[in-house]
């Protein structure tokens, strides 16, 4: 019997090592797998490459990972925010490398990795600083930039419900990058509010099929989250 559920966040991230490339779901805090990130911080690993839309908000999640000095490089679209002070400080101190990627290119490059493409020609960024030095091509009168897929060793994502085969459904806009990151990483670890019996998720509404998910951990929503979601 295949059961992908893990007893704890700590157990689920126990083989993430120094230097790993880790995708982290979420758009701001919506969909951010906070407890998985906490467990990753507790492991003490360093020199991570993090792929996330942002570069942390406030004190938790990706921000905490940066604050603790664990991130060598971040690939993201929107690092600078009113509460991105840990990233800002690390960036200004030269302690973190930034690869700034337009959000749609970020999504498309992650999706390309999950779909096994070798590269894509993307319309976004042509003629801008973010395409400087990159190969371009005109196709049917439109200019495109050559971009590689973004792969990762691990993806840490947050979903609403999961089952022992790894099938996932999400909640509202917390879905965001979860489904495509799950497809692009070698090992996808999903924290879910609830692990339900097999078959309880309607086969028509599964958003992430279990093939894309290697580990599932049930994490009850924290008091803070409940308050936020109230």
């Amino acid at each position, binding site marked *: 019997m295949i059961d992908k559920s893990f007893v704890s966040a700590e157990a689920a991230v126990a083989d993430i090592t120094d230097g790993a490339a880790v995708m982290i779901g979420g*758009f*701001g*805090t*919506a*969909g951010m797998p906070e407890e998985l990130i906490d467990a990753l911080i507790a492991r003490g690993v360093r020199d991570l490459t993090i792929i996330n*839309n942002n570069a942390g908000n406030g004190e938790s999640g990706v921000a905490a990972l940066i604050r603790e000095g664990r991130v060598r490089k971040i690939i993201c*679209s*929107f*690092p*600078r*925010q009113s509460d991105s002070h840990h*990233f*800002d400080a690390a*960036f*200004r101190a030269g302690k973190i490398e930034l690869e*700034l*990627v*337009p*959000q*749609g*290119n970020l*999504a*498309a490059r*992650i*999706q390309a990795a999950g779909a096994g493409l070798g590269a894509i020609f*993307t*319309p*976004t*960024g*042509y*003629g*801008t*600083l*973010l395409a400087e030095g990159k190969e371009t091509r005109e196709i049917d009168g439109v*200019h495109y930039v050559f971009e590689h897929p973004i792969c990762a060793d691990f993806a840490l994502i947050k979903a609403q419900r999961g089952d022992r085969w790894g099938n996932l459904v*999400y*909640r*509202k*806009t*917390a*879905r*965001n*990058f*979860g*489904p*495509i990151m799950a497809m692009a990483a070698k090992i996808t670890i999903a924290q879910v509010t609830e692990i339900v019996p097999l078959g309880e998720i309607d086969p028509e509404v599964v*958003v992430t099929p279990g093939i894309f998910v290697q580990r599932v951990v049930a994490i009850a929503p924290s008091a803070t989250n409940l308050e*936020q*979601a*109230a």
Partner: protein
Amino acid sequence: MNRLTRDQMAARVARDIPEGAYVNLGIGLPTKVGNYLPQERDIFLQSENGLLGMGPAPAPGKEDWELINAGKQAVTLLTGGCFFHHADSFAMMRAGHIDICVLGAFQVSTRGDLANWHTGEPGAIPAVGGAMDLAIGAKQTFVMMELLTKQGESKLVEACTYPLTGLACVGRAYTDLAVFDVGADGARVVEAVEGLSIDELRVLTGVPLAA
């Protein structure tokens, strides 16, 4: 000269959004446009973080922080709206499924180049988000901005000096003093606030303006 307030600018943009349009409103000033869309029109607001059919802000205390917009503010979902993942969301933008996007701007050129993501100042931390995707992907890109900086310089320019967001992507710029069409044929004044002539706009902006 009746300079438009930011809310008046938003109301002006809203007037140009037809029933049935799929619309993405950028962070900041463009978000205000949502407040002026007439209730009786079915207009579909898309948010880059994966929702279509975005409704107004919830009542205070009713926020759901897993139901947010691109600016990470709590929003609601209209009946008939839906959720989807990020690749599908940006497919909507990048392949021209979105009819209109409305963006803020540092500068717009008379040929429609847009600069709105980065001041290029030393030490400034850049952040681009979905701006580049929206600028080049929507069927029509509208810009909303004050026409002049605090220093009195025109943001409608012959060539952008700030780093570009996209080339030849803006079709129309709504400002507090006038509305301009921009593009391959240069800039044209669609309308100006009462008491402001085209010649005065030419002086203020320093760019060629067709009537």
